[in-house]
């Protein structure tokens, strides 16, 4: 197995990770951190992201969003167990791995992955395939049929997420080109963001959008979810160092700074425009900051973290205005403008801030700003196009089998009662 993510890290910051040279000898500290990181990323999704989203919908749909996130989490875990892990991380193919580790064959208590048990690596990466499709739930919230959603997620996981992971982190062609994506700017945020946009377009706007206000039913929940996301993101980015070392520490530091900077950027814009800085605004800026730093987190220094966060908060703000206000596309919870745009922006900004001149880890041998930028743009464009086209085809095919969209009465009554037979609140 080639593991190009670590490879890339190693290339650009060789001195950082001295323990790695003793590959295949267990380091209990690295293991402790990766066990923790896995738990953190799980938490980022359940309850984190699911709450963040649930607060934003109307109360008649609160459970449907929680249910979608929860079910995706479960199903993708089994997809990963069955073939996902193997196809992503086993084998040397340029485009896809092999099935040698299907059903986690050969993953025993003794299997190692550098300094940590392979079981831990499997869980850590599993949390990534769980959260990525859960992100796009925000694009079609409040109107997609549960069954169709589930089929879409599974196929998407297999056809979009797994290959892209292989390309970028599993030793595939983008890894070979030297794409820098520390924790998932392309693999996670671009793929999810673009697919959310496509799904929103294919399904159409919610009835009444944009004339009728569809205000969040509980921003309290959303803010709670936001705090959990920030917390969990430490595992997402910090854990992507796959070790408890200076690389993990710096990833955590820049992640934190970018979250803070993104938050304040968004808040400041609102303050200037409306004189009313809002809590939904600041937490959205936080997600923008976090999404934008994700691909960069292992490669840049503190100043890079702050600047990337400021860019993320600002650019995602205007992207949100454009998609919803300008183009009237009902990407209901703004997945594309925040995750898609943030992920792309961050992936591109890496090319600048990896430079040692800005406190970054420095370019890999043979790379410079121009060449790195080229690779980064290539990564952004290819993953965005691939995710978008495949999502479109999948949705159109699934629509032949089963209606994608809940019928009008269901939408009116709310998905909770109509599709899940329960209500969020009985006060």
């Amino acid at each position, binding site marked *: 197995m080639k593991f190009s993510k670590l490879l890339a890290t190693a290339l650009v910051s060789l001195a950082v990770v001295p323990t790695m040279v003793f590959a295949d000898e267990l380091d209990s500290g690295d293991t402790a951190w990766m066990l923790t990181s896995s738990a953190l990323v799980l938490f980022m999704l359940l309850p984190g992201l699911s709450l963040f989203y649930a607060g934003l919908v109307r109360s008649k749909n609160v459970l449907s969003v929680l249910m979608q996130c929860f079910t995706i989490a479960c199903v993708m875990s089994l997809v990963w167990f069955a073939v996902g892990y193997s196809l992503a991380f086993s084998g040397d193919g340029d485009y896809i791995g092999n099935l040698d580790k299907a059903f986690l064959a050969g993953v025993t208590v003794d299997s190692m992955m550098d300094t940590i048990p392979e079981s831990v690596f499997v869980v850590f990466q599993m949390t990534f395939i769980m959260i990525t499709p859960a992100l796009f739930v925000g694009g079609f919230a409040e109107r997609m049929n549960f069954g169709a959603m589930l089929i879409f997620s599974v196929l998407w996981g297999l056809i979009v997420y797994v290959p892209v992971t292989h390309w970028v982190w599993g030793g595939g062609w983008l890894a070979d080109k030297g794409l820098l994506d520390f924790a998932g700017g392309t693999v996670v945020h671009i793929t999810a963001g673009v697919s959310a946009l496509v799904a929103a377009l294919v399904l159409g706007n919610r009835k009444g959008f944009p004339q009728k206000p569809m*205000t969040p039913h509980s921003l309290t929940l959303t803010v709670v979810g936001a705090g959990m996301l920030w917390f969990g993101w430490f595992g997402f980015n910090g854990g992507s160092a796959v070790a408890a070392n200076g690389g993990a520490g710096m990833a955590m530091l820049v992640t934190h700074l970018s979250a803070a900077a993104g938050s304040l950027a968004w808040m400041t814009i*609102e303050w200037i425009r409306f004189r009313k800085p*809002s809590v*939904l605004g600041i937490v*959205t800026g936080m997600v923008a900051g976090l999404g934008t730093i994700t691909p960069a987190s292992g490669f840049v220094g503190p100043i890079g973290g702050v600047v990337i966060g400021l860019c993320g908060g600002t650019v995602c703000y205007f992207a*949100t*205005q454009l998609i*919803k206000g300008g183009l009237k596309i009902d990407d209901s919870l*703004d997945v594309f403008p925040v995750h898609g745009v943030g992920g792309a922006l961050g992936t591109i900004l890496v090319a600048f801030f990896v430079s040692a001149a800005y406190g970054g880890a420095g370019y890999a041998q043979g790379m410079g700003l121009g060449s790195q930028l080229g690779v980064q743009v290539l990564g952004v464009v290819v993953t965005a196009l691939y995710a978008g086209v495949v999502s479109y085809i999948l949705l159109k095919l699934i629509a032949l089998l089963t209606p994608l969209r809940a019928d009008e009465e269901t939408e009116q009554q709310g998905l909770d009662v109509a599709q899940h037979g329960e209500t969020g609140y009985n006060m």
Partner: protein
Amino acid sequence: MKLVTAIIRPFKLDDVKDALSAIGIMGMTVSEVKGFGRQKGHTEIYRGAEYAIDFIPKTKIEVAVADDVLDKVIDAIVESAKGNKVGDGKIFVTALDNVVRIRTGETGTDAI
């Protein structure tokens, strides 16, 4: 007997309740409502999208009273709920055919 229904500002509830108690009114029923009228609402902004929220939280008080105290009751409510700003609210008076106290079966003014 009359049913006096007052729509007031929520934060005036305690004052109104005290004013009514002061004139010997022992019971009332209160609910939360939303009002729409001359008082203008507010704006909420979610991720840059502005929404005008026309409906304003109000409190509705219902009091069944004997005819002879009707005027005193209205005065008490007006005095205690007044803030001299648009949106102070309204009082509606309807005739009550009957009142029954469930516990005792008493009817009419005895039941109030």
